[in-house]
């Protein structure tokens, strides 16, 4: 015993704070981190240089580092890791941290900080980044002594990836990483926080009550969100929904949590959701919400939301339940556990009103039929391409199997509407914060980790110009993402709102003096093609997808007059929608 302890002691390594960080990331199994060096982070960068297990991807702007880490986290379910320096390095990361926070994405952001004796002195490149990020992190830490580093980092990863995931910021003053001071390093396999115990299972009694309602329902609908994706509950959910034979609609964040090609899937719901989803929600007598948060882009006016429905709400975060819409049966628990419990309870049971359910399906099918082939009018000869038909063509050509990232605006909605996803973690979009500039760096983060998959960034010329400097990063690391620029030479969604609400006064929603995107791409040594007509589209897509490892940019000119429909009428109920420029419900 005594001998063992002694040997144990002998095995303990003495490492500097910077080496501890590099070593911890190795021990935590982190393969890639994304970042940008600067004064306060240089000790850490030196430690990373002296090892080869953790690979650092040098971005061209810190916001891109956070989006790349975020994209990876969304695709893999594991925390993305970012390293930035103090001051402007850290503040540049803020938009990406907020993006991850709003969509509950696990992320650990390591920020350099000025030396501790300078904190508060307005030192060069000093920012109180803990204060700046406080409302947009799950939690944050400051390192007060180098010996704390392993435990604090373990806590950061633990908090980021458990319960309702989210970003965690760790602020590291430069003297904490000084190479001259060495301390014992042991990788902490586990950490405990007395004030943090995420629930591991839902309340059995509540689940029973929910299942009783489900078996008795006449017009039920599942409404499932990003919590099913992050909670790895897609498989269980699919099983449950198919056993019951109920319709299901997902949120934008929940796309792919149930196969969209299946008949029971009504698509996604909300402001630009499918007609049948919104109609079914409005007329339902039971809404089973799992891992969704009833946000304003889904519910429209909450006082008119689902007037005849009882609401079952499953969420891992108690503060999500009854936040905007009161739940009749609240269930706090992880989606996977609750869904599996529900499966075991419905096993061998019959639903009470099969005839009513059949009638409900007839109604839903009639809504589906009403809008079939009326969603948009495909372009005819000499007309500009419609953005919708471009997305449909991409979906066909990639057999619905690509990772698809988007930026924000019309192209994002079209991508969500017309690309059909059968798997979770494939549609990667900034749903909560709506961050323009997200798509390209997110695609980069995914492609680096999944080099043999097709990763397509669907963007618009507005969003793309916010992060296009990352072409340089792609060049440095040979990142073969596929960029589809739906170019309508205007900020499409802004323009749409101006058409609808401001008598088409297009205040600053058009893009004068766009660059020649083809030449711009070629300047970085990549291939770009311009597409103006329908005939050019298919061959261009063939070229885009020919080599998985080659970055190709398609600049596709699309009709700037196109609007995204359906579109819910502000302050209305779920069913109040504009269906085209001339029709409404």
């Amino acid at each position, binding site marked *: 015993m005594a001998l063992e302890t002694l040997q144990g002691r002998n095995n303990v390594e003495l490492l500097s704070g910077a080496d501890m960080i590099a070593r911890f990331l190795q021990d935590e199994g982190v393969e890639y981190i994304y970042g940008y060096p600067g004064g306060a982070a240089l000790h850490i960068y030196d430690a990373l240089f002296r090892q080869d297990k953790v690979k650092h991807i040098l971005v061209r702007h810190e916001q891109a580092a956070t989006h790349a880490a975020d994209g990876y986290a969304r695709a893999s379910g594991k925390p993305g890791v970012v390293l930035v320096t103090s001051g402007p390095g850290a503040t540049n990361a803020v938009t990406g941290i907020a993006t991850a926070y709003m969509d509950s994405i696990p992320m650990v952001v390591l920020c350099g900080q000025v030396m501790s004796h300078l904190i508060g002195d307005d030192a060069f490149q000093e920012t109180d980044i803990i204060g700046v990020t406080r409302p947009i992190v799950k939690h944050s830490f400051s390192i007060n002594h180098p010996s704390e580093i392993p435990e604090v980092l373990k806590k950061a990863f633990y908090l980021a990836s458990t319960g309702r995931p989210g970003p965690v910021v760790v602020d590291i003053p430069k003297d904490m990483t000084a190479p001259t001071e060495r301390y014992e390093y042991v990788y902490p396999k586990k950490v405990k926080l007395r*004030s*943090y115990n995420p629930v591991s299972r839902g309340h059995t009694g509540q689940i029973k009550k929910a299942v009783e309602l489900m078996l008795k329902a006449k017009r039920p609908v599942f409404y499932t969100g990003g919590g099913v994706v992050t909670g790895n509950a897609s498989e269980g959910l699919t099983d449950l929904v198919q056993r019951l034979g109920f319709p299901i609609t997902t949120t934008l964040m929940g796309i792919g949590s149930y196969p969209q090609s299946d008949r029971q899937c009504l698509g996604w719901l909300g402001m630009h959701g499918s007609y049948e989803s919104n109609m079914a929600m409005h007329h339902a007598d039971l809404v089973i919400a799992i891992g969704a948060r009833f946000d304003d882009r889904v519910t429209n006016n909450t006082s008119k939301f689902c007037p005849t429905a009882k609401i079952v709400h499953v969420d891992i975060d*108690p*503060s999500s339940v009854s936040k905007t819409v009161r739940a009749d049966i609240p269930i706090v628990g992880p989606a996977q556990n609750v869904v599996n419990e529900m499966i075991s309870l419905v096993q061998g049971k019959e639903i009470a009103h099969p005839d009513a359910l059949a009638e409900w399906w007839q109604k839903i099918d009639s809504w589906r039929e009403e809008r079939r082939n009326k969603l948009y009018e495909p372009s005819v000869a000499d007309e500009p391409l419609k953005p919708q038909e471009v997305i449909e063509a991409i979906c066909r050509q990639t057999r619905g199997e690509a990772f698809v990232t988007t930026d924000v605006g019309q192209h994002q909605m079209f991508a969500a509407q017309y690309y059909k996803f059968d798997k979770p973690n494939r549609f990667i979009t900034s749903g909560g914060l709506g961050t323009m500039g997200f798509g390209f760096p997110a695609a980069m983060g995914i492609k680096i980790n999944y080099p043999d998959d097709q990763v397509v960034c669907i963007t618009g010329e507005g969003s793309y110009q916010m992060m296009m400097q990352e072409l340089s990063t792609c060049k440095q690391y040979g990142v073969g993402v596929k960029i589809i620029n739906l170019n309508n030479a205007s900020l499409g969604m802004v323009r749409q709102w101006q058409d609808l609400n401001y008598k088409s006064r297009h205040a600053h929603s058009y893009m004068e003096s766009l660059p020649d995107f083809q030449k711009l791409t070629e300047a970085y040594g990549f291939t770009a093609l311009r597409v103006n007509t329908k005939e050019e589209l298919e061959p261009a897509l063939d070229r885009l997808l020919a080599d998985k490892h080659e970055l190709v940019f398609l600049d596709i000119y699309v009709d700037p007059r196109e609007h995204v429909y359906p579109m819910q009428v502000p302050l209305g109920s779920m069913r109040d929608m504009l269906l085209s420029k001339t029709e409404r419900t």
Partner: protein
Amino acid sequence: MRHIISILMENEPGALSRVVGLFAQRNYNIETLNVAPTEDPTLSRLTVTTIGDDRVIEQITKHLNKLIDVVKLVDLTEGNHIERELMLVKVKALGAARDEVKRTADIFRAQIVDVTPSLYTVQITGDAGKLDAFLQAMAPVGILEVARTGVSGIARGDKVLSL
């Protein structure tokens, strides 16, 4: 309705700003705030009074519980409880008013803790209503300065807020 929420939280830098920040960020109200370490030096007790309907209070307690630094909390107004606030008031005390201030302080069971030829400093404890009433009574005499601690509270009976 007014609620008194008592919170046990980690006695660490930044914990207080997270609690206060949450109220600002989510547009909740802080009427009074009172915080100090407990007998366990790793824990602070923070008591906040806030106003909101049941839905808002439910959200406040849920969001507070979600903060990693918050270990435990109780809404004291859900049950019988004792609430106290301490106030120090400097009032003018000249001529006839000097006796009047002394008499009023006695009625309120307040103590005069400092004197100068022209003013008294009065210390008074009680619930917020009592303190307000005392200030009203002193107003005609002339209030020079008021320092209130904000509400602190504890549940009546066997209920204990501890780890």
